[in-house]
């Protein structure tokens, strides 16, 4: 990867200042790792580790560094932090992971440290939970139906009750909350979907149901696209001729053309007269 000059400057400055400190082994700084777990719609699990340093009320990202992911004690792989200091591991649905005796799985991430950066660790223990979402019209009410369940040893489903699920629609810059509801004894909940939300030009909206930062289950989400929005014309309206566009309105061009041809026409006529005067001057004068 292309290292940038400014980065080199930064590095040079660091080395200069860091020299005496490096000599003393004790002056290492420990980065922080934000470790999140997300179970996605397709059942895959996304592990995300953001490595950064918080110093003097400012944040520094730890980039292009290898971190080590492990699950249930098995080390899985190394991944490299990207430009935002984040390393990802995606676990495909159905991948066998070692479970703890209580049925949970512990994911760990380890940053071994480098130079003056100390090692850092983070771990997360979650229980696998499934989420099913149905978007259906019940008695002419648009209903978001969500079911939370665990999968038993024999492949049976056990409803998960008493968990709060947030329902959102997806927007460009954020998720817009529609409502939240807690699952009942059967692990299910229903939420009425509003009728006045704008959607894409075909009326489609992305509905997202999420269990968020749950102590037991981590983050679990399910999203679906449905034509429950009000179709909004997103096509670009290009204003071509206005005072503020690049091209002028017609009346302005017409007015200007009339004015300019009027004036310059007379100029040209006069210049022609001058040429004629010159021509006349070349003729012999009749006495």
């Amino acid at each position, binding site marked *: 990867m292309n290292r940038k000059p400014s980065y080199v400057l930064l590095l040079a400055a660091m080395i200069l200042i860091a020299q005496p400190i490096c000599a003393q082994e004790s002056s290492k700084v420990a980065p922080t790792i934000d470790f999140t777990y997300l179970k996605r719609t397709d059942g895959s699990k996304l592990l995300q580790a953001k490595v950064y340093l918080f110093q003097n009320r400012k944040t520094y990202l730890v980039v292009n560094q290898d971190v080590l992911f492990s699950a249930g004690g098995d080390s899985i792989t190394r991944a490299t932090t990207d430009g935002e200091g984040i390393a990802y591991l995606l676990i495909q649905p159905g991948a066998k992971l070692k479970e703890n005796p209580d049925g949970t799985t512990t994911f760990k991430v380890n940053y071994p440290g480098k130079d003056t950066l100390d090692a850092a660790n983070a771990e997360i223990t979650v229980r696998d939970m499934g989420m099913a979402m149905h978007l259906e019209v019940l008695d002419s009410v648009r209903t978001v139906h969500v079911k939370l369940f665990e999968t038993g040893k024999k492949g049976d489903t056990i409803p998960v009750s008493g968990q709060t699920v947030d329902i959102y629609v997806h927007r460009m810059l954020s998720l817009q909350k529609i409502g939240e509801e807690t699952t009942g004894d059967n692990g299910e909940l229903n939420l009425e979907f509003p009728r006045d939300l704008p959607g894409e030009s075909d009326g489609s909206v992305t509905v997202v149901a999420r269990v968020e930062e749950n102590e037991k289950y981590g983050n679990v989400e399910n999203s679906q696209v449905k034509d429950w929005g009000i179709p909004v014309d997103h096509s670009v309206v290009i204003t071509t001729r206005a*005072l*503020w566009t*690049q091209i*002028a*309105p017609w009346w*302005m*061009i017409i007015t*200007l053309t009339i*004015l*300019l041809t009027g*004036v*310059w026409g*007379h*100029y040209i*006529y*006069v*210049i022609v*007269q*001058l040429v*004629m*005067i*010159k021509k*006349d*001057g*070349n*003729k012999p*004068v009749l006495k």
Partner: protein
Amino acid sequence: MTTYNSDTLFKEFKPQIEQTSRSWFIWFGFFICCFIFGVVGFIRQLTGGHIVTGMRDNVVWGVYIVNFIFFMGISYAGALISGVLHLFRTGWRKPIIRMVELITVISLVIGPVFILFCVGRFERIPYLFIYPRIQSPIMWDVIAILTDLVGCIIFVYLSYIEDLALLRDRSSELKIPKWRKKLYKWFSLGYKSTPSQVKRLIFSRNIMAAMIIAIAIIVYSVLAWIFGVTLQPGWHSTIFGPYFVIAAVYSGTGVLIIVMYLFRRMNHLENYIKKQHFVNIAVLLFIIGAFYGYFTFADYLTKWYGSVKMDKELIDKLFKDYYWEFIVANYVGVLVPMIIIAFPKLRTINNITIGAIITIFALWMNRYLIVVPTLETPYLPIQDIRPDWVKYKATWVEWSLTLAGVSVYFILFMIASKLAPIISISEMVHQDHKHVPDEPVQIL
């Protein structure tokens, strides 16, 4: 009216274009020094950036734009006066018509240069022609000024042709360098006063005189609309077009009186430019001054009564921070010249010239009061601790370039008066309407 013949006039004016006096050189040297001072200021601005001027984020336009409006105003006034005097065959115009025409062209050359000083990247001025957007009043101005410049040059040139032909014909009698004789020969276009040439020339001059009047009005209105189209308090006014035209003619007439006064003394033209010429022009100044006063009053009165928040703030500022400037620009500048002209006893050449100087100074101040206080009164309050961000104060750089502009004005006049007589010989000789053989009186 006395009739002149070209032979006597030629002999009379011959020394003026042949010889150059010591005082001429002294003044010329003085103006060149002023010009060099301006060059120093310009170099300072180029190397130091626009921070060396007094302009800041609120007052983004300062003395440069004031000078631009001022010189353009003088120019359009020249065009208007010369066009009108020519078309109406005003008899007393003859000795002064060339001065009026020179005022037009010279101011028109100097005015736009101040725009170059004002823009942040003057090396990108060609972009105006590469990427034009005609919705911008600046683009209207670019087109209008170029049109006006070409028109005025043609108009002035037409008025020079006969004199140049005379100088060419009698160049053997002139003790001047060869290149000047060649210049006369080349620019006189072989004009020999044949009937067809005379006819063509008169017709062309009439056309251009009419064109010049129309363009002068359009161009100065366009200049006013640079301010009028914005929403700034004090600028966003429908009266601005006509107001600028009147103010321009007012200042231009004042400049004409001063130029007349200077050439009358320098070139000893007492026999040609008489008191009556001053009085006639002064009466013109009186009428225009009355209009100017009326327009100013109408503009401020409605703003004062309307008491829109921003208008009120602006008027408060004018009467508080700019009290004396406002009095000078809009009271002294109108009333004093008018009083001088109103009483026949006061109408001496010196008094009229003093009145004209007051007019010009007041009109420059008037443009300053249009540009600066408005920009110091933005819709959102100026909450800044840097004093120069709050109140505009022109720096030496801006003054040096202003001085240079005025010097170049004089320099160009001095050069022009050496190339051909400052009084148009052909104009003096012609009997209006009678030199077109076998033709009825025809104005257009």
